[in-house]
Structure formats: C-alpha cells, structure tokens
C-alpha cells in the first residue's frame, strides 16, 4: 500500500485516505492562449516510466492539496512537499539524483 506523508498535517497517510490529482507543476493556459498551449495544458501528459511529480489531496484527513515525487516504475516515494511551489524543491531533486543518476531532470 502506498503511504505518503502529508506535508500540511504531518500524517503518514495510507492510499485510501488520499485522492490522486495527476501531474504536478503544469503551467496553466486559459482564454487567449494558443490552441496548442491550451491542449497541452489540458491533456498532454509526460506520463514517465520513472520519476514523476504529482498532486495529491489528503481527502480523508486535513483536506489539503500537496505534491509528491514518486517513481512510477518501482513505486518508491522520494518525498512530499508543499503545493505552493512552482518547481520541485532542491532537496527533493538532490535526493532523486542520488537514487537515479540517469534521471534527465525536471523540466517545465
């Protein structure tokens, strides 16, 4: 069972307490943007086999959104962090680099 520590309330929450919210750090495009940009924001996903940054909600706990870095090929969790960030924090990136030397890195 997947266990993620909610950075908002500190609870190590089981999967059944959490609601997955898809890829994190998407740049929002709205009215006035190009069709390409809007389509990419709405639908195109990296869907990597490996390091993935994603949104979660502590739905049956404190109710807050947060972000997690996880490996989709092994289910290993690298860490969780606040949703009020535009990119993965340095300490999470360092941790991932140590464990996945071939990782191409995060790009917007």
């Amino acid at each position, binding site marked *: *069972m997947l266990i993620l520590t909610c950075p908002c309330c500190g609870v190590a929450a089981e999967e059944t307490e959490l609601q*997955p919210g898809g890829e994190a750090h998407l740049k929002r495009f709205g009215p006035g943007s190009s069709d390409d940009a809007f389509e990419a924001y709405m*639908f*195109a*996903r990296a*869907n990597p*086999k490996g390091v993935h940054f*994603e949104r979660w909600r502590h739905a049956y706990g404190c109710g807050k959104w947060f972000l997690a870095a996880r490996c989709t*090929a*092994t289910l290993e969790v690298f860490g969780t962090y606040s949703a009020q960030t535009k990119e993965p924090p340095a300490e999470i990136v360092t941790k991932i680099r140590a464990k996945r030397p071939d990782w191409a890195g995060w790009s917007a």
Partner: protein
Amino acid sequence: MKRYSVFAVAREALRNHQGWDRAWAKADPKPRYDAIVVGAGGHGLASAYYLGRNHGITNVAVIEKGWLGGGNTGRNTTIIRSNYLQDPSAAIYEKSRSLYETLSQDLNYNIMFSPRGVMMLAQTQHEVRGYLRTAHANALQGVATEFIGPERVKELVPIIDTNGPRYPVLGALWQPRAGTARHDAVAWGYARACSAMGMDIIQNCEVTGIRREGGKVTGVETTKGAIGCDRLGIVVAGHSSQLADMAGFRLPIESVALQALVSEPIKPCMDVVVMANTVHGYLSQSDKGEMVIGGGTDGFNNYTQRGSWHHIEETVRALVETFPMLSRLKMLRQWGGIVDMTGDRSPIISKTPVEGVFVNCGWGTGGFKAIPGSGWAMAELMAKGASPLAEEFSMFRFREGKFIDESVAAGVAH
C-alpha cells in the same frame, strides 16, 4: 502453414502428435521493412494481419519487447460487447464484435468466441435512464440490445440477488450476441496467420528509439539493432507515452494499473457475463469453471503491473452483495495490467505529427473487444492514409474539443 482441421487432429493422434508445425516462425530482423508494427499485443498483431489480408502489404515486422500477448492482451477478463452510446464507438466496436463471430474460421485457429450474452446491471434510477437511452441509441445504430426487467435478469442469472439491501437490481442492458473469447488464442491466431503471410514476428526485442529525417520516419532502433521502415505503427498500450517521446511528441495518455482475479474452479453456475457498474465489479465464468472477476483502476500513474490491494477488496465486497454465493469461494490468482487512459477515455487511432508514424492506443480498460475492428481500421489508415472507422478517433480531437465521451455517457470504462 499446415491447416488445422478435424483430419489433422485425427492424423496427428495416430502418430503421437509428432507432425505439428510451430504456430509461427522464429524471426531475426531484416535490415528494412515496408511497415513495422511495435507491440505484439492483440491490436498490433491484428493491425499487421489486416495490412496483409486487406491491403496486400506483407513485408511487415511486428516487434515485441517481451513475449507475444504478454501485455494487457494476456491479462484481461475477455469481455466482448458493442453496446456503446456514441456513434463512432458503436461503429468500431460492432465491426469488431461481428469480426469476432467468424474469426476462428478466418484465422483457422479456435479463438473460442462464446456469444453468451453480456448483461449490464442497472442498480440506480440514474442507470436505468442511462441504459434505456443506450438501448434506443443502439437500435438506431443497428446494434442488437434491449433493456430487460429484474425478472428476466433473475431468469438468466439465477445466482443473482436482485433484492440486495443497498443496490437492488432494477433492470439491465442486455446484449445477447456479446460474450467472451480466449485472449491468448486471439494473439496466437493472428500471429500464426501473420507468419503464414511471410511477416516477421520478432520477440524479446525492445524498440529504444525512432529514427526520423526531415519530419519523416526512417526506422527504429532496437535492442537487436537498427531496422529501417517507411511506415511505423505504434501499438503499445501502457507504453504509448514512451514511444511518443521517442518520436518527439506527447499524447493525452496516462498509464494506470487495472486488476483482475479468478476463483477456484467450480461447477457451471452462470452462463452469461454480468457487469455491475455502480458497485464496480464484473463477473463471468471461464470454461475451466473459475469465476473471472474485474474491478476498478488505481488513480495514480503506475507501470509496475500490480495494483492496490484495496481495489480487490472493494470489488469483491461489491460482488458478494450481488452474488451471495461468491462469499464461499477461494480466490486463486490476482494480477494487474498497465492500461492507457486518454483524456476522454476513448481510444486513439491516428496519424501523428511525424510523417509515416501512426498510433493506436488509449483502449484503456476495454480494448480486448476491439482487437479485430481496431486492427482493421489501423491497417487501412497505415495503407491508405485514412480510414472511415478511425476518423473520429484522431489524436487531434483534443485540440478541437471533439471528444468521444463514452466514460460519462456509459458510466463505465470497459
């Protein structure tokens, strides 16, 4: 290829089965092919088969990183139906179901198609209305379905409890000509027929790169070396995003785990397929007597081919309420497959931004039933550049907002 027949069985019985050929030839890659299909699941093999059979293109290789049929094709619960709501879906799924009816004869391989009927239970008023609507739509589309009441449900499925405390059975959408088939046999039958046409089926060979020149495909890189081609079909289900990445574009796809399980074998107790979408479980009995059970997907991206425990628990809990006798059964095996979910939960059969590259994916939790029809459309698209069956399933529909929203329409993904 020696044909299978009752005479062949008799002949081989008399000589200790020494004379059977390999079903398909072992192949090493040639330097180039007219067309390459990546992925030897049902959809990839069917695409190759109809390229040869319908369009005369036989200089074809099917490249598979593992073993043939080892992906979702060999992991699914084999439900075949075509009672969809939207016209483009009804067209391709009904084409597919009708091809299944004669597939054993066409391939000279017994795929054990069993048109035993599929019943989708209505357990809320909302579902009753939804399925009545689908039945009317199906009548217009020429797909034979009907809405039946709880008495008829009980008659067809005596082991069901129609008066369950939480979700009583209010009726069902019934498609008598829907059913099941043997999943491995579908892959094996297509592979044998492809091999007989001279195509190469190359297993244990992973595609690791896609070569392009001036926006056009020129070949693939694989663990067995580079192979050239004019046309490339990407048919890799859960790994579609990886292949798209190699070709330099993105797809509206996320890969998640879907699970199934089977019970110990028991005597025949249910001769139709039942889907209970409100409680999210579906059930059929295999020819060996096992109860074959499927449920819901996990919500997070996953490539591990194993899903979360609580989904099995939820599925079984729901089914036990509707089929009380299941509570006494032991479950034998459980497994998962990585399914490719699109933004509107409908498939993609499409050209791509790279000339000569075509993609067939997004069948998600429900593409076994679509294998013949999807292969038919994909082959036409690869051979002629367009296919009426595939037209609405273009990957560019997401830009235009032309969704084929079956998920919301039918309330179920498979």
